[in-house]
């Protein structure tokens, strides 16, 4: 049980950078934010302890509606991403061979060589009223006037799904790759239809990958800022915008901190629920990601 002192020292030294990194960049700011979120401003530059910031969230419908909307849209985006990514991952893992597989993965990775902002602006070029799609539709005579595709929920979802796709495909393809081809064949051989084999063999096998991908995409979506703001415009109504507004526009840091804590709580709760629902443990899931 008891390690020799010098090995323990080595272990400590090896772990020190990671511990420092975790402590300084993640734990410390969050403790700060937590403390901040419980301070109410009673007079200029005078703060007292209290739950006012959280109460404000529940009493102002705009806040909690935006919050709920963010949660529901994020779940929707995650599900859509999963449905889209599954056949792609299946193809990459089971059908594509050698160079083609590398090419396909590279193709998925390509959009991430430009920043998220530029990618989103790209979508704006395509979708805006004077954009490419509108122009083509008009030129081919399918529509009489220009059409605005931007600034609605569809555009926001499109952008978010696009941004999440890679992070779903990689863990899914990983999970599917380890499925023995003979197991799938046995599924057919014993009389299973495509649907049965998918439902009873492929999906259960890929479950750790599905959960890992979903958690990553969900987290990225909930915490996204640029995509809902740029593609959704005034109708974006993403909760991160509220946090941004409190911190930057209103300069109400305690309120922003409370929102930040609530968002953290929301993601944790939904991830936990997802894990419970699928019967996966965080351990096996992290192995897959």
């Amino acid at each position, binding site marked *: 049980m008891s390690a020799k002192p010098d090995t323990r020292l080595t272990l400590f030294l090896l772990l020190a950078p990671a511990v420092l990194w975790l402590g300084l960049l993640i734990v410390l700011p969050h403790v700060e934010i937590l403390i901040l979120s419980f301070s109410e401003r009673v007079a200029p530059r005078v703060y007292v302890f209290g739950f006012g910031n959280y109460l404000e969230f529940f009493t102002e419908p705009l806040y909690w509606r935006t919050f709920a909307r963010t949660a529901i849209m994020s779940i929707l985006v995650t599900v859509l991403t999963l449905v889209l990514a599954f056949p792609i991952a299946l193809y990459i893992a089971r059908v594509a061979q050698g160079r083609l597989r590398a090419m396909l993965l590279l193709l998925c990775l390509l959009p991430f060589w430009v920043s998220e902002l530029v990618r989103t602006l790209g979508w704006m070029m395509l979708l805006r009223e004077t954009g490419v799609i509108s122009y083509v539709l008009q030129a081919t005579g399918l529509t009489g006037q220009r059409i605005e595709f931007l600034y609605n929920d569809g555009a926001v979802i499109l952008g978010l799904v696009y941004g999440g796709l890679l992070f779903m495909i990689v863990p899914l393809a990983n999970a599917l790759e380890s499925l*023995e081809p*003979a*197991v799938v*064949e*046995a*599924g*057919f*051989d*014993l*009389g*299973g*239809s495509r649907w*049965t084999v998918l439902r*009873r*063999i492929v999906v*259960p*096998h890929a479950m750790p990958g599905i959960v890992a991908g979903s958690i990553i995409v969900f987290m990225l979506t909930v915490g996204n800022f640029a995509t809902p703001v740029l593609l959704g415009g005034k109708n974006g109504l993403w909760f991160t915008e509220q946090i941004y507004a409190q911190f930057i526009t209103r300069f109400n840091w305690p309120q922003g901190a409370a929102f930040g804590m609530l968002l953290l709580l929301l993601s944790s709760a939904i991830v936990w629920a997802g894990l419970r629902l699928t019967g996966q443990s965080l351990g096996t899931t992290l192995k897959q990601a």
Partner: protein
Amino acid sequence: MAQSTDLDLVSVVKRFGAHAAVNDVSFSVAPGEFFSILGPSGCGKTTLMRMIAGFENPTSGDIRIRDKSMIGVPANKRPVNMVFQSLALFPMMSVGENVAYGLTCRGVSRAEAEERANRMLERVGLKGFGERHVTALSGGQRQRVAIARCLVLEPTLVLLDEPLGALDLKLREHMKIELKQLQATFNTTFAYITHDQSEALVMSDRIAVMNQGGFEQVGSPRELYHHPATPFVASFVGETNRWQGDVAAASNGAISVRLPSGAVIQGRDHGQSQVVGKTALAFVRPEAIALAQETSALSGLPNRFEGRVSAVLFDGANSSLLIDTVGFDEPVRAVLPQAGQLAGIQVGEAIHMGWSADAVKVFSA
């Protein structure tokens, strides 16, 4: 009524690019038969099986099961089930679910499928294992689950692709007998592939010997062993001595082969007409070689040689000797009886050996 068959292959060919993995194979399997396909690694056995199961399409030819052509019928609609080389049990399901899987695919209710699966597990000696996870089984138990999973569907034909390959020797010997017994009690037709000739000889009613995509000979284990039709069968099935030489004389079914050293072996022609002077291969089984300490004891035999023991390969009843013999490049292999005065023979001792002309199979090379 014409004799019915469970499986017929008619001139089946499978090409991968220019390479013919299976080249013009035809055979029939009768109901209840244990039919084996025996061949060296890479000769196309698995490819042949996969075509019968429906995972590959033949380039040409026909596959018929109970007189219905299977061309174009997908794997999940064929009355054949396969035990895979790797077993391919479903790791995401329990033992009971593995066995019930095929039944539920057919629309059998969950409760009934479970009950039938349990009954099947009982018959293969796995009573009470239904709830177990498949990873918590021994090699032999996993084997039985893989077979139970097929048999529960009462298929016309069960295909087994080297199912004993992954087991250790002891268990393999045991499973050989168990498989044969299972096949007999269920009276299901088995098509079994293996590269292990002893597996094929022990279990099969009939064996097809396969080489480089084609069938060399189809017959009962005894036929193959005692009357091989080709040099490949003679050397692949069972232990044998193999010598190459020229035909020295051939008349009235008697044939003599002269080895490069000048030694002459008397044999019998087996239906193939041999031309004097042509290259020929002669085969003699180790157990056909009589051993003696005095040459007088072998006086009735046309082939008599003298040699010195170079190795004693002790293996109980399968013990044999390697004998360095004048006139032969390689040592002659002969079975050493474990009774009698020769049982204690040592390396370096002189020995006489002889065999009849009937024991020598001669093929033109």
